[in-house]
């Protein structure tokens, strides 16, 4: 069996509080190739964010391992950079400083000060945010904050980019715009991406494969759907594309027929 770039092997997660133990994840197995764009979709509370946090190293799995590029993941690090749902920029730093904080720390020894400055600007340029370098997060819109968050994550040159519902807090128009940007950047940089989402269209449009999770407790991977659509993808032409709609249908039927959430009104 050839080793994949990112391997999640037999990962289970239990949370214990007092005498109560809840089994959140059970036997998660996933292999991701270099340059692949993977979405994880599932109902809220199914533990998809927990999977991401385990890969990020922010949580320790109760059992099982995550192996990235031949090394076991034990703690958080810049090779697995995160884009958080609520951007989590530091509000007392400007747009430039937020990215520079990461760049200056990670490339302290490998790049000169001028190179780091250059690199910070280049990443902000990639997300079209150079017009607001000296603004603080409170002074820019939600979509712009998320752009800066993406720039910060990209600037770390991660082996895998982890997106935790990156567009969840945005309005539909901004979301579509940012999805297009992410597709454009992805076509340039060929990053390995793992994205958590609960948006079916987003998953089909962006992903190479969609990982569908069953409902918790003891959630696991239900089905994996390969999205065989040519890139670059265009949301308007795809809207009438039968293959695209077929994929959409498959995800929808998994979520709303096979894994229908009974306790949600």
């Amino acid at each position, binding site marked *: 069996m050839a080793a994949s770039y990112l391997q999640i092997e037999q990962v289970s997660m239990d949370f214990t509080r007092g005498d109560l133990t809840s089994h959140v994840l059970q036997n998660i197995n996933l292999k991701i190739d270099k340059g692949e764009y993977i979405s994880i979709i599932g109902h809220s509370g199914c533990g998809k964010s927990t999977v991401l946090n385990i890969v990020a190293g*922010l949580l320790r799995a109760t059992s099982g391992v995550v192996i990235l590029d031949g090394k076991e993941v034990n703690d958080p*690090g810049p090779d697995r950079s995160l884009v*958080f749902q609520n951007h*989590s920029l530091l509000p007392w730093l400007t747009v430039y400083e937020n990215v520079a904080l990461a760049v200056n720390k*990670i490339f302290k020894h490998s790049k000169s000060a001028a190179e780091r400055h250059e690199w910070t600007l280049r990443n902000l340029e990639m997300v079209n945010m150079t017009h607001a370098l000296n603004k*603080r997060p*409170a002074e820019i819109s939600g979509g712009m904050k998320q752009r800066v968050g993406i720039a910060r994550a990209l600037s*770390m040159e991660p082996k895998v980019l982890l997106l935790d519902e990156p567009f969840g807090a945005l309005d539909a128009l901004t979301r579509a715009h940012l999805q297009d940007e992410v597709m454009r950047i992805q076509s340039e940089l060929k990053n390995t991406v793992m994205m958590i989402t609960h948006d079916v269209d987003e998953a089909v449009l962006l992903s190479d494969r969609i990982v569908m999770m069953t409902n918790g407790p003891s959630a696991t991977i239900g089905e994996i759907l390969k999205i065989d659509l040519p890139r670059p993808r265009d949301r308007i032409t795809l809207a009438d594309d039968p293959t695209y709609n077929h994929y959409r249908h498959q995800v929808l039927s998994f979520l709303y027929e096979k894994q229908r959430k009974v306790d949600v009104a």
Partner: protein
Amino acid sequence: MNSRANITSVPAEPLVIKPRVADFKKPLVGILKKWKTFLISRFLPPLIVMTILVGVWELTCSRPDASLPSASAMLEQSWELIVNPFYDNGGNDVGMAWQILASLERVAYGYLIAVVVGVSLGVLIGQSTWALRGLDPVFQVLRTVPPLAWLPLSLAGFQDSHPSAIFVIFITAIWPIIINTSVGVRNIPEDYRNVARVIRLNGLEYFRQVMLPSAAPYIFSGLRIGVGLSWLAIVAAEMLIGGVGIGFFIWDAWNSSLISDIILALIYVGVVGFILDRMVAFIGNRVTRGTSAG
């Protein structure tokens, strides 16, 4: 495309210029008007209230059997002190400014030590649950001890009045600083911690780049309460330890039955306390600008 741009730009030009000429006079008049309304709305109400208060004071204390001096009598009796704040006849016989400065010096020492120790301990019990469990009960009991109750003990310990007064200020100001700092550190959003963990900030970097700015609004509200309390405590402490200082000045004036000097000293104490509070608030606003906004 080009012709279209030209059509729109031509009529736009005069539209921009016209209001500019008319606007020229407007700002001057506008600024004056703004200042006038600002002065009237901000300074008139306190002025009226002050006049009424002084009037009532004057009326109630002007009767021959009044035990306190009236406003005019106070001005007359303490006139020397009011006009000469900087005289120095040696010993305790110095102007009001020197008395206040002596008190401020003690407060400055005690308060600064309290800031350093308080923020450090606050960070410790904010970071470590073990330290919180161990130290919090001690703090909760000690912080209820009134400032002056510490004075005899510190006199016994230091064998000298000067460090004792500083210690009383320190022990008074430190509790709100510790408690607020620890709450601020505990309330650092999980996301900021995660960002720091992903880019692997070390302890010192995390402290400087994330913890201090994030907790700064809490820390500064503790610092503000602390400075107010230390100014409250210094007057009482100085009454007991003697020497130069506004507290002993008040006590001395009482022993010499110079009631008007006491009133003058109280005004000084109030104004200085107000300034101290505003200074810390001002620094806090400058430092935490943008911190609390999400």
